[in-house]
């Protein structure tokens, strides 16, 4: 049902206003105990239009997207969709919680890696992630973490040392460019102007 009082277009179609704060999302969330703002509070903040507080929370980046909340919500609210929208917002506005920068950096490295190769090159992904993580918080343990894993993986042949690349990498780049928030937005406006 289209929301009458949605505070923000980005939640359109997610039934945000239908949340009645039963807390079943929080009750089933595997990460809730570690969250600064638990899922039902995130949705309440979004209902109240307090998006900055929601988007600055650590919780949205602690979310592992397991969809337990979405699956069990008695009001069929698109819980993960709302958290995704808040994550996008926190990226746009530079509101990612400092404590969770590593999660953001990993996801960023992941996307960069796709953009470059079309597929994930794990060795390169891990190197990039560790480097960006180190530059972020100068954590030596992060650099050294799982250092012993590489030889074990190698020994088991669970490695594609050079990584795979798709043949047509240009199309991947074009897709990424067209999906940048500005590109998407301006594309939409053009469409609306035409229709």
């Amino acid at each position, binding site marked *: 049902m289209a929301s009458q009082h949605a505070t923000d277009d980005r939640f359109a179609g997610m039934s945000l206003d239908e949340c009645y704060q039963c*807390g*079943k999302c929080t009750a089933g969330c595997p990460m809730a105990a570690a969250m600064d703002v*638990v899922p039902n509070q995130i949705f309440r903040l979004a209902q109240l239009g307090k998006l900055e507080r929601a988007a600055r929370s650590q919780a949205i980046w602690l979310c592992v997207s397991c969809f337990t909340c979405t699956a069990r919500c*008695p009001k069929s609210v698109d819980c993960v969709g709302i958290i995704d929208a808040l994550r996008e917002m926190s990226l746009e506005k530079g509101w990612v919680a400092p404590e969770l920068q590593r999660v953001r950096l990993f996801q960023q490295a992941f996307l960069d890696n796709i953009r470059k190769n079309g597929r994930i090159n794990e060795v390169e992904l891990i190197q990039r992630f560790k480097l960006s993580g180190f530059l972020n918080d100068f954590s030596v343990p992060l650099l050294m973490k799982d250092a012993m894993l590489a030889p074990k993986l190698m020994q088991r042949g669970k490695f594609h040392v050079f990584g795979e690349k798709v043949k047509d990498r240009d199309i991947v780049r074009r897709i990424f460019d067209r999906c940048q928030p500005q590109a998407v937005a301006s594309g939409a406006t053009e469409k609306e102007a035409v229709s």
Partner: protein
Amino acid sequence: MARIGVFVCWCGENIARTVDVEKVTAAAAEMPGVRCAINYKYMCSDPGQASIREKIQSEKLRGVVVASCSPHMHLKTFRAAAQAAGLNPYLVEMANIREHCSWVHHNKDEATEKAIQLIRMTVGKVLRNHALNPIKVPLTKRALVIGGGVAGIQASLDIADAGYEVVLVEREPSIGGKMAGLSETFPTLDCSQCILTPRMVEVGQHPNIRLYSYSEVEAVDGYVGNFEVTIRKKARYVDIDKCTGCGDCWTKCPSKKNLSEFDQGMGTRTAIYVPFPQAVPARPVIDKEACLHFKTGKCGACQKRCQAGAINFEDEDQLVKENVGAVIIATGYKLYKITDAQNNAKYTGYGEYGYGQYPDVIDGLQFERIVSASGPTGGEIKRPSDGAEPKNIVFIACVGSRDNAKGMTFCSKICCMYTAKHTMLYKHKVHDGQAHVFYMDIRAGGKNYDEFVRRAIEKDGAKYYRGRVSKITQENGKLIVRGTDTLVGEPITVEADMVVLATAMQPADGARELAQKLKVGYDEFGFLSESHPKLRPVETTSAGVYICGACHAPKDIPEAVAQASAAAGKVQVMFGKGELTREPEIAVINEQTCAACYACVRTCPYGAIEKAEIRDRKGNLVKYTARVNQGLCMGCGTCVAVCPSKSADIEGFSEQQIYEMVKNLV
């Protein structure tokens, strides 16, 4: 010659603010057939009515149009005024210039013009009105009450005490319904059986009540005042007239391990049984599925023991007919089960609570039996799996209720109260135990209700957490209940020994089918529909059929009883009259032009049109025709729409009248 009077109402400011009543009155006075037109501040007031009466007599009016509010409000008022002045009331019509005009428009010029058109239309209609007389219908002053729970018992006793006969039909072997199985009742904690069983005995002994237990309503024919009901008396295999209720049969019955319906499956009973000691009638019934005689042909222990010779293995279902004038439906409720299999594709079970696979996760009615002195544990709180006393018990509210994803959007209304009661009863029996409650909102509106819930929390120490439970699992003999408390914003896990689910209330099985037999509406969940949610709460759209109790919506005992008395009161109002009168605005068939195609018979939603024959004086068949049963017709007009020979019409809303209205408009 038409002599129509038009009476324009200001309704204070309600109409006059947006409609120029003077201009409207002047325009009405000029309409063809109008003899006079006046306006007044409140036409419905005494002086307003007096002016109508006065004009009818002084101007010798043959028709009246009152331009005011909706006919739902005051048509009766104005028709009565006209009748007092000697005018047939069905020559009075109303033009609705309030709800249809002044309330919904802002522009005064346009609204005034519209009011004039509405009046012109209605004047056109009245030009074609003719005098009608209310229809008189004979009346059988006996009532049928379907369902012998507390609502049906109350309604039966009220009507019977007023001196009318009652036929009470109960599906189970005994009356008493759900209330007979409850432990103690909120908010007073008085023993449920102690207050109900005297009423049950009264029913059993009342000279005006004919009780059909273990019986169901098979068919209903006829119409208000004149129903013919077919009742199926299910084979009981015990002649209740011969039986003395001594109990020799069930003490000797070798088939003992059958789950007791009365104990909600928490205890057992024999194959020949009375559901509980205070049953009315206190006569046993044989469960054919469980009886060794029927299963193997070998046993006959009960028959051998019975000195009254009351056991009859050859017994069969019997159909009996009863004539009644009014029907009260009081079929009550059942509880939603969280199992995977649901009887309606709309609903889904709770996989996250194990689909009912954990034996120590039970529902509210099962807990009632466990905590009842008459229950399978003798009132000691023992959990089903191993009989241990639960030291940590979790109650979960709104299971199914208010859960759109499971298919039910409504609040079951009684769970907040009985859950609070359960925590108290538990604490009173397990002093070192802890009750935990997961709830969404506490809905305790009612006399002494909120105080009761507070007492559970403040005096009896129940821990309330505001949040739903996401999952229940079983580990090492404990039920792991994963919930939350949204007030602190934290997940809460309770390791419980037993869990009680306050599951949603649903209409009893078969309620829809019964409603269809009685042509009573029901909602998407199968709860029966009243004809007006505020002003006609126990009436239905089917004349002479009333509803009370939880078949209408979730409700508690006091509400069900109050509604039952209301329904009984309505029946007594009806029976207080010598005969029934009905509004004459119903269908009529022109039998001369009727082609007897019976399209109307097939489409009539009330079954009010019959196939009939026209015979001459010698009894020779002249022709076939359709004929309206004046007792049944509700005047909906479906027959008019489907009649290919234009032989069907509605009195007071004839095609001629409608045509005149349209003509006057264009």
